[in-house]
C-alpha cells in the first residue's frame, strides 16, 4: 500500500462508503466515453465464443487420443470400443488425421495449435478490452481537467488540491479497472461457467449431475469466506490507516514528543494499535487461506467424484475412459472463475464509487461564467486607449457576510495611475481580484470602459487587463514559455522586446540557456528580484490596456530595486495602472492614492495632500518609510534572514 496523503482516515472513510456494485445511472453516464470505441467492445464480445470453444478443445483432443487411439490399440477392451458414442460424428472429421500422419502426432499438433490459438485470442481479448477502457479513461481524464480549469477561483479555496488530484488519477484508474476486471469480465465469466455446465451435461448428464453436486457447497463456502475476507480486509485497512496516521503525526511532531518525554508512552500505545492491526491480519489470513484451501479441496473432491462415479460408469460400459479426462479438465475450468467472482464484485463496487465521485466533480458548475450575450466595450472616439475602470458601490466577502470591501466607489480614467495603500487585511488584494473577475462582487458593479465585467467574455477581459501578482507564479518550462504563457500570437520578438523594456533581457541572456533555460517549479532557481522582472515582462508581452500590480513586499538589494523602478515606469507608460503600492518610489510616481482601511476608502488624493492631512496615510507613510530605511541600512541582515534555517 502506498503512503497516504494527509487526512488518510478521512479519505478512507470516503472510500469505505461503498454503495451498489451496479448503478445503471452511473454506467449510463460512462457510456458516451465507451461508445466512441464500440467497435472494439463488439470485437471482444464476439471473441468470447471462439475462445470458449478453444478452451473446450484441448481436453477433447486428449479424450479422442485416449479413446480412439490408445485404448483401441491396447485392444482386448470391448468396453472401450463400445464407448465411442460420446463423440458426435460431425466433429470427428477434424480429429481424423490426414493420410500418412500418425494419429497421435496429429492430435498432439492439434493440441498445441488449440493452445496457441486460444492463448492468442485470450491475449487479444484482454488487450482490446483494456485498451478500450484506457482510451475511454484518457478521454474522461481530459474532460475532468478541462472542467477543473474552468471552475471559479472560489472553488479552489474549499476543495483541497490533493482531492482534485485523486479524482483525476486514482479515481479514474479505479474506473478503468472496471474494463479489465469488472463488468465485462464478470459477464464473460458467467457466460463461460454456464457454457461449461451445459457442455458437460451434454456429454454425460448423469456424470455431470454427480460432479455438480459439490458446486453449491463450493459456491456457498466461497461466498461466505470471501465476505469474511472482505470484512477482515476492511478492518485491516482501517487499522493500517490509523497506524500510518499515527506514525506520520509522531514523526512530524517528534520535537514535541521528545520535549515532553512521551517516548515510552507513545511506544506502548503504538504497540497496541500495531498489535491490533496484526491481529486483524491473522483473521484475514485465516479466511484467505481457508478460501484457497476450500477451492483446492473442492476441485479435488470433484475429481474424486468423477473418478468414483465415472469409473463405475466405465466399468459398466456406459462411458469411455477418456470422457473422465474431459470431465476433470472442464470442471476445473468451471471452478476457476468461481473463485474470482466475488473479487470482481468488489472491483465493481469500488469502480462505481470512483465513478460517482468523478461525476460529482463534473457536475459542479463554474460560478464565474461568460455571459450568453457578451458586450464588447467601445474604444474612445478620439482614438486613445481604452482602460477606464470604475467600481460602483462594491461590497465583497469571501464567505457569508464577512465583508472585506464595503461600499467601494471610484473611477480611474484611461492612462491614469492610481495606488492603493492600507494595512494588511484592508482589502487591497481583494479589490485587485475583483477587477480581473477572479471572484465575483457580492454587491455593486465593476466596469471596464463602461461595461459590467459580468457582461464581458472572460477571454476578452483577460486580454485587456494584465495582472502582476505578488507571488510570482512561474511554471515549469522555459523562460520563453513563462513569458508567453501559452499564447501563440506572442512571438519571440515581442517577448524579447518586452524583456528588454523591463531590464530583464540582460539577466535572462546570462542564464545557462538564455531564454530557453528551464525554470524549476515555482521558479526557485531565480532570485526574487529577477522573478519580479520576469512577471513585468510577462505583463508587457501581453499588451493590455490596464495594468494591475500587487507589489511584492519582500526585500531586495538596492540595485535590483532600481531596476524594478525603471521597469515599472516603462510598464505603465500609456496604460491605466492600478497598483497596490509598497514602495516609496511607486507612491511618489502615481497620480492619485486611495487609502483603504478595514474595507473602506478613507482618504483620497495625491501624496503631498495626504501627508499634509496627518491622518491614516501619514502614519502609514512614516511606518513604511522607516521600515524601508531600516532595510536599506542593514541589507545583509535581511539577506541572512532567508538563509537562516529554523531560527
Amino acid at each position: 500500500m502506498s503512503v497516504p496523503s494527509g487526512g488518510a482516515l478521512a479519505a478512507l472513510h470516503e472510500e469505505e462508503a461503498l454503495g451498489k456494485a451496479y448503478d445503471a445511472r452511473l454506467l449510463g453516464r460512462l457510456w458516451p466515453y465507451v461508445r466512441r470505441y464500440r467497435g472494439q467492445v463488439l470485437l471482444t464480445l464476439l471473441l468470447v465464443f471462439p475462445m470458449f470453444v478453444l478452451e473446450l478443445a484441448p481436453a477433447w483432443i486428449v479424450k479422442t487420443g485416449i479413446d480412439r487411439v490408445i485404448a483401441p490399440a491396447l485392444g482386448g477392451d470391448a468396453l472401450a470400443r463400445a464407448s465411442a458414442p460420446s463423440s458426435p460424428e460431425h466433429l470427428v472429421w477434424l480429429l481424423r488425421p490426414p493420410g500418412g500422419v500418425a494419429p497421435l502426432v496429429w492430435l498432439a499438433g492439434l493440441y498445441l495449435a488449440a493452445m496457441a490459438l486460444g492463448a492468442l485470442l485470450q491475449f487479444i481479448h484482454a488487450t482490446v478490452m483494456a485498451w478500450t477502457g484506457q482510451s475511454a479513461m484518457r478521454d474522461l481524464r481530459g474532460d475532468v481537467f478541462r472542467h477543473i480549469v474552468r471552475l471559479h477561483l472560489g472553488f479552489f479555496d474549499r476543495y483541497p488540491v490533493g482531492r482534485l488530484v485523486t479524482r483525476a488519477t486514482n479515481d479514474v484508474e479505479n474506473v478503468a479497472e472496471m474494463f479489465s476486471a469488472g463488468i465485462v469480465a464478470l459477464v464473460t465469466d458467467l457466460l463461460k461457467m454456464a457454457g461449461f455446465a451445459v457442455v458437460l451435461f451434454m456429454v454425460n448428464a448423469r456424470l455431470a449431475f454427480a460432479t455438480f453436486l459439490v458446486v453449491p457447497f463450493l459456491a456457498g463456502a466461497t461466498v461466505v469466506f470471501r465476505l469474511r475476507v472482505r470484512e477482515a480486509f476492511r478492518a485491516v485497512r482501517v487499522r493500517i490507516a490509523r497506524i500510518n496516521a499515527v506514525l506520520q503525526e509522531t514523526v512530524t511532531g517528534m520535537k514535541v514528543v521528545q520535549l515532553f518525554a512521551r517516548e515510552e508512552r507513545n511506544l506502548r500505545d503504538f504497540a497496541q494499535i500495531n498489535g491490533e492491526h496484526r491481529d486483524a491480519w491473522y483473521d484475514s489470513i485465516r479466511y484467505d487461506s481457508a478460501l484457497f484451501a476450500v477451492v483446492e479441496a473442492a476441485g479435488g473432491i470433484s475429481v474424486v467424484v468423477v473418478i468414483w462415479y465415472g469409473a463405475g460408469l466405465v466399468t459398466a460400459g456406459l462411458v469411455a475412459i477418456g470422457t473422465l479426462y474431459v470431465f476433470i479438465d472442464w470442471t476445473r475450468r468451471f471452478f476457476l472463475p468461481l473463485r474470482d467472482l466475488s473479487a470482481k464484485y468488489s472491483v465493481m463496487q469500488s469502480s462505481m464509487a470512483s465513478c460517482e465521485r468523478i461525476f460529482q466533480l463534473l457536475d459542479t458548475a463554474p460560478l464565474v461564467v461568460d455571459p450568453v450575450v457578451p458586450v464588447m466595450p467601445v474604444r474612445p472616439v478620439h482614438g486613445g486607449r481604452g482602460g477606464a475602470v470604475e467600481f460602483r458601490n462594491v461590497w465583497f466577502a469571501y464567505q457569508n457576510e464577512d465583508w472585506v470591501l464595503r461600499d467601494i466607489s471610484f473611477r480611474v480614467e484611461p492612462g491614469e495611475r492610481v495606488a492603493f495603500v492600507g494595512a494588511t487585511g484592508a482589502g487591497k488584494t481583494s479589490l485587485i481580484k475583483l477587477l480581473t473577475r477572479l471572484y465575483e462582487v457580492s454587491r455593486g458593479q465593476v466596469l471596464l470602459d463602461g461595461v459590467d465585467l459580468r457582461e464581458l467574455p472572460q477571454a476578452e477581459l483577460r486580454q485587456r487587463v494584465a495582472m502582476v501578482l505578488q507571488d510570482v507564479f512561474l511554471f515549469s518550462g522555459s523562460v520563453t514559455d513563462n513569458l508567453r504563457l501559452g499564447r501563440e500570437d506572442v512571438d519571440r520578438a515581442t517577448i524579447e522586446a518586452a524583456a528588454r523594456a523591463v531590464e530583464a533581457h540582460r539577466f535572462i541572456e546570462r542564464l545557462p540557456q538564455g531564454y530557453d533555460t528551464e525554470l524549476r517549479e515555482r521558479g526557485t532557481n531565480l532570485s526574487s528580484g529577477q522573478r519580479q522582472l520576469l512577471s513585468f515582462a510577462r505583463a508587457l508581452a501581453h499588451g493590455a490596456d490596464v495594468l494591475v500590480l500587487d507589489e511584492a513586499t519582500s526585500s531586495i538589494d538596492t540595485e535590483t530595486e532600481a531596476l524594478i523602478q525603471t521597469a515599472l515606469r516603462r510598464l505603465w507608460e500609456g496604460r491605466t495602472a492600478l497598483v497596490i503600492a509598497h514602495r516609496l518610489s511607486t507612491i511618489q510616481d502615481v497620480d492619485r492614492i486611495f487609502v483603504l482601511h478595514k474595507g473602506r476608502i478613507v482618504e483620497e488624493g495625491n501624496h503631498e495632500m495626504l501627508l499634509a492631512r496627518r491622518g491614516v496615510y501619514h502614519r502609514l507613510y512614516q511606518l513604511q518609510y522607516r521600515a524601508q530605511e531600516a532595510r536599506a541600512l542593514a541589507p545583509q541582515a535581511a539577506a541572512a534572514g532567508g538563509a537562516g534555517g529554523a531560527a
Partner: protein
Amino acid sequence: MTAGAQGQEARLAGGDGLVSLAARPGLRRLLRYASHNRGTYLVWMISTLGYVGMSVAGPLLVGFALAAARAGLPAQELTKRCLWLLLVTLLRGGLRYWSRTLVFNAAREIEYELRNDLFAHLERLPQSFYFRWRTGDLMSRCVNDLGSVRMLLGPGLLSVLQTPILIASFLSAMIAIDAKLAVLVMLPYPAFILIARAFGRTLHRANLALQEGLAELSNGLQETVSGIAVVKAYAMERASERRFDDTNRELYRRQLALVRANAAMPAVVSILPGAAMCIVLLVGGHEAMRGPMTIPNLFTFAMYVYEMTFPTFMMGWVWSLVQRGAASMQRIDQVLSVEPSIADHRDAVPVKSLRGEIEFRHLTFAYPDGRRTPALRDISLSVPAGTSLGVVGPVGAGKTTLASVIPRLFEVEDGQLFLDGIDVNRIPLRTLRRSIAMVPQDSFLFSMSLAENVAYGLPSADLVAVAEAASRAQLARDVAELPHGYETIVGERGVMLSGGQRQRTALARALALRPSILILDDTLSSVDAETEAAIQRGLAEMFKGRTVVIIAHRVSTVRACDQIIVLEEGAIRERGSHEALVAAGGLYARLARDQALEQELDVEAVA
C-alpha cells in the same frame, strides 16, 4: 529515497544473480527477526512436507483408482481407493490451509516487531536526524518498504522455498513411473521459470513507468491548481489543456504497455504447460500403446503437469518480489543503524530536578547540514534561576536555535551550556525534559482531545491540572465554545483550531508541566494585543519562581523581562533591560518606536 538507495534498488532489480553484497546487513537483521519465530518456521516446514506428500499422493491415487476400473476389479475396491483419494484430498486442503497460515502469520509477526522497533528507534533519534531526513522518505520506509519486506517473507518465501520441494517431489514420483517421459515432460519448465522471471521484470518496469507517468500527471495538475489564479488571470486555460493532453497521452501509452504485459500473463501461464501436456499425449500415448505405460498413469502424469503449472510460474514471478524485499530491508536497516546520539552520558550526574539557572559560555553552534555559517556565535549569557530573559531579533537571527539547545533538542559541545552549573550533556534526559517546557513556534497539536493535548507531558489527563493550565493560557473561553469542551478532538483529524487557539493550547501544555524553565518561542504572535495582555497578566503569576525565556517579535511581549538580548546573525548585539535598551537608541530602540506607531494605527508593521 536518497539517490544512493535508488541506485541500489536499480542494481538489485536488474541483477540476475544473487542479491548484491550491499543488501546483506539488511538480510542479516531480517534473519535475526526470523529466528525469533523459528518455532513457527519449523512447524511450517513440517506442514509443508506433509502438504507436498499429499500433493504427490493425489495423482498417484487417481491412477490407482482408475486402474481398478480398467482391471475390472470389484466396486468395493474402487470405492476403497476413492476413499483414500478423498482422504488425501481433504488432508491436503487442511495442510494447505495450515502451511499458508503459518508462513503468512510469521511474516506478519515479523512485520509487527519491525514496525515497533522502527517506531521506538525513531523516537530516540535527535532533531539533527529529522533535519536531514524528510518525513516523506521516512514514511515511505516505514510503510512501503516494510510492505515489501512482508511480501518477501510471505508469498516470496512460500514460493521460493515451498515450490522447489514440491516440484522435486513431483519429478521423483514421475520418474518412478516412467523416467523417460518424466524427463521429457520437465523439459519446458526451466524455460518457463526464466520466462516467468523475465515477465516479472517487464511487469515491474512497466509498473514503475506507470507510476512515474501518474506522478507526472498529478504534479502537472497540482501545479496548475496551485497557480490557478495565474492561469485564469492570463487566460491560460487552453495552454494548460494542451500541456495536460501531452501528459495524458504519455500516461495512456504507458498504461497500454502495462496492459499488454498484464494480458500476456494468462497466455504465458497456459502455453508451456500445454506443451508439457502435449508431450504426455504424444510420447506417453505411444508408450501406452506399446508398453508398460497405462492409461491411468497417463492421467497421473496429466495431473502432475497441471499441478506444477502455477507454482512454477509463481516462482519465476516472485523473484523480483524477493529482490525488492531485500532492497527494502536494506533501506529499513539504514534507519535502524543510525545511532541515537542524544542519550544519557555515561558520566551523567544523577540530578532529579533543576532549579533553572542557565548559563551560556561562548556557545557556538552550527546546523549539521554542512552550512559553514554557524547559527549561533560565541553566545555568553547568564540567566539566574527564577528570572526572565527576552530574546528579540530579525527573522533568521538564531532565536529559536538558542531556545532549542537548552532542552538539548540539538547537540552542543561539552562546556558551552550549563544548567544549575552542570554541563547540559551530563544531565539525565529525563530530568532535563521534565524540568524544561518549551512552546515551539509551530504549536503542533496531536489528533486527540484537547485535554489530552494539554496534559501531554503529564502521566495522565488530570482535568484539574488541565483546567488550571488552560485558564492561565486564556483558553477557557474558547473551550466553552467547542462542541465537546475539553473532550473535543483537535489536530489534523479533528476540529481545526485557529492559529491563536493552537498557540494557547501549546502554552497550556507547557504550563501544565509546572516546569523549572519555561521557554516561549513566538508564542503570542497570532494573538491580538488585548488577549496578549490578558495572558501576560495570568502568566505573571506563573512566572514567579521559574526561569522564563521569551522569544518574541513584539517589544511589548518582552518589556517586562529581567534582561533582554537582541540577536542578529547568531550573535548578541545588545543586552540589558527594556529601559536601558531604549535609552541606548540602537536596534531595540528603533524596533520599539516602530511598534508603538503600529499600535497607534492598530495595524501590523510591514515586515
